């Protein structure tokens, strides 16, 4: 990426090192559910913001799925105009406090930062988080003047990152927007999936409250496909429907013993802890098994979230069991690093073959097999090959299966004309998420399969443009 700055100025800028963000020390944080990174203080944020060289053709924006005006908001932070920075962020991103925490910036905006070519990129995520937190903590959230209602209504199914993004975009264009959420709390994976120590739920609540203040209606406990169908939504007068129901069905490995007591899907384990606050049982009524020896199968972010939750629930031993090596792990480096710091054990190149149980039907361990890496598979990762005679038993009283999710069939099964692909995900015609059913768009994990918060948000943004164009023509 080209820059128009003078060599002189560039040198001056690079003298400031990338500002570290303070964190709770590992020994302390494994005993609580409070957030691990603590955020920048004002001085550090300004210093970090001053590292940005304000490229004329910024690569960072192109690296962002929702096209946040990154240099502009960073400049405002450098100038000490924190509230203005938050407003600038919100022009393109309805959930900056969330994205500043859970986006994989290292693969997106920060990957394209020119400073990263020779040194370390600007800490865009940390600055985003700082600006959003500053505004929220001040308690004076700026609510833009409402757009004049255009009399058209759009139904959004699912209140996860994709649904919330499209709701924010369409309400600003004057649409009446109703979001239907199956659970009793809005936020989707942000509330049931991502733990408090990575994304405090008060932040999600604040972001949802912000959208409601903008005029978005959220109907909770509303399972589309059961309470009403997509056809019903059109009959009720919605001009378009956006389906963002997530990849909400857990995948099990179909190996013997998988239904023993003490074996959870990651979805269940995390939902109990995050949405139902089982980690605060008995203050909250939902129980969760507090295992002493917990094994988590998988190497993604959800596996890291699960294993770190297990530690905080008091596990003496929490182990990641993954069939490839750390190199192939889909989890963010930062999450793996956090898990390592906290004392998580890693049984790499290891796959479970069957679960063992006692006479009460409780899991006691699993028979595993060691693997070695063979040729790269379709995903480009080297595929694991079993090593003959390498079987061993790993003791565990609690197991969390975090090997992925798949499409939840409730909406596709009840929506005539809505085609799915062979894996059950909703088929779309192009980038904007138009489906085979006229007036219906879809985006997020129900289209792509398990992906990231920001990609789901990007899909919401594109669909918002497409639905706006569709309803403007009609």
């Amino acid at each position, binding site marked *: 990426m080209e820059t128009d700055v003078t060599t002189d100025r560039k040198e001056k800028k690079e003298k400031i090192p990338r500002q570290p963000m303070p964190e709770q020390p590992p020994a302390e944080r494994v005993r609580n559910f409070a957030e691990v990174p603590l955020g920048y203080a004002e001085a550090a944020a300004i210093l970090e913001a001053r590292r940005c060289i304000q490229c004329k053709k910024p690569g960072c924006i192109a690296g962002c799925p929702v096209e946040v005006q990154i240099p502009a908001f960073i400049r405002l932070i450098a100038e000490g105009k924190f509230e203005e920075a938050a407003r600038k962020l919100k022009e393109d991103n309805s959930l900056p406090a969330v994205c500043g925490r859970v986006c994989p910036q290292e693969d997106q905006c920060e990957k394209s930062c020119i400073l990263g070519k020779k040194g370390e990129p600007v800490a865009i995520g940390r600055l985003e988080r700082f600006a959003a937190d500053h505004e929220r903590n001040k308690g004076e959230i700026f609510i833009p003047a409402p757009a004049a209602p255009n009399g058209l209504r759009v139904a959004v199914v699912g209140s996860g990152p994709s649904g919330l993004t499209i709701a924010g975009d369409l309400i600003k264009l004057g649409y009446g927007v109703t979001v239907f959420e*199956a*659970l*009793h709390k809005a936020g989707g994976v942000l509330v*049931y999936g991502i733990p408090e120590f990575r994304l405090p739920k008060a932040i999600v609540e604040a972001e949802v409250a912000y959208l409601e203040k903008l005029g978005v209606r959220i109907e*909770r*406990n*509303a*399972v589309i496909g*059961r*309470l*009403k169908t997509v056809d019903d939504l059109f009959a009720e007068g919605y001009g378009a429907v956006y389906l963002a129901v997530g990849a*909400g*069905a*857990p995948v*099990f490995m*179909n190996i013997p013993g*998988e*239904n023993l*007591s*003490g074996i*959870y*899907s990651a*979805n*269940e384990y995390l*939902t*109990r802890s995050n949405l*139902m*606050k089982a980690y605060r*049982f*008995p*203050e*909250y*009524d*939902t*129980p969760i*098994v507090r295992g002493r020896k917990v094994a988590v199968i998988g190497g993604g972010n959800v596996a890291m979230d699960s294993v770190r939750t297990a530690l905080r629930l008091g596990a003496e031993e929490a182990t990641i069991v993954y069939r490839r090596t750390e190199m192939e792990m889909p989890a963010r480096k930062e999450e793996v690093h956090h898990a390592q710091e906290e004392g998580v054990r890693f049984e790499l190149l290891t796959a479970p073959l069957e679960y063992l149980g006692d006479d*009460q*039907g*409780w899991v006691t361990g699993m028979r595993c097999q060691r693997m070695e890496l063979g040729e790269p598979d379709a995903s480009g990762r080297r595929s694991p090959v079993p090593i003959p005679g390498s079987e061993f038993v790993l003791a565990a009283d609690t197991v969390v299966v975090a090997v992925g999710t798949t499409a*939840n*069939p*409730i909406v596709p099964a009840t929506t005539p004309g809505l085609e799915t692909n062979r894996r059950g995900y909703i088929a779309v015609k192009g980038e904007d998420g138009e489906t085979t059913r006229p007036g219906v768009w879809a985006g997020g994990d129900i289209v792509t399969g398990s992906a990231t918060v920001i990609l789901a948000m990007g899909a919401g943004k594109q669909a918002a443009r497409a639905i706006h164009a569709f309803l403007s023509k009609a």
Partner: protein
Amino acid sequence: MNEITLRRQLSENVVRMDILAPEIARRRRAGQFLVLKVHEQGERIPLTMVDSDPAAGTVTLIYQVVGKTTALLAGLGVGDTILDVQGPLGNPTEIETFGHVVCVGGGVGVGVIYPIARALKEAGNHVTSIIGSRTKDLLILEEETGKVSDRLIVATDDGSYGFHGFVSQVLQGLIDRKDPIDRVFAIGPVPMMRVVCDVTRPGAIPTIVSLNPIMVDATGMCGACRVSVGGETRFACVDGPEFDGHQVDFKLLASRLRMYCPQEEQAYHAHRCGQHGN
């Protein structure tokens, strides 16, 4: 929303409640359930809907007080509201004209079998209902079930009313008398359903059971409710709750239902002490 419009004590531990939930009432069909959460810190529990009145906008629940959540619920009265009510969930009962159907209900399961018996009767079946309880005072919906059945047989474990013994024994009697039976629906405690399936298995009488495993989201997202049917893992919330009873692994169901016994007792105990203590 979710206002309680009727509360009636049906037996010592069994309560009927009607709840204002017009959209659910309009949609609900026999065999479906809802999930409710009584208060902010509450857990989500599934309860089968016994009835619905689309005109009044109400759904009817019949539940037994077995733990903290059902105790909290039973502590509410007419005019109170339930924080969260989600439904209708699960697949409706497949109602067809089978011929002679026997509906077997045990304990609070009578509340679930009653609407199914009614729907089967309305579909033109000859309906025999066998309902039972531990003792006479715990028997519910006798009159209602009788009205929608061609024949009603009551059994109590202690012989205080009707046949002295289990509902499964009554069913065995019908089978022994060579009464032709085209289908059996059995809903009640896990051991009762298991035994009924054992009774109908030799004659290969199709037997449908409604399973009540632990659920969290109840929309197919978490897998807490997984059951083994014909050797395959199914989710009771979206694949059920009704399954071919001859294929169900009841032992697994029973052991998974016990998964949180210590915590459930702890919560219920603390709740009762909080109520009666000080």
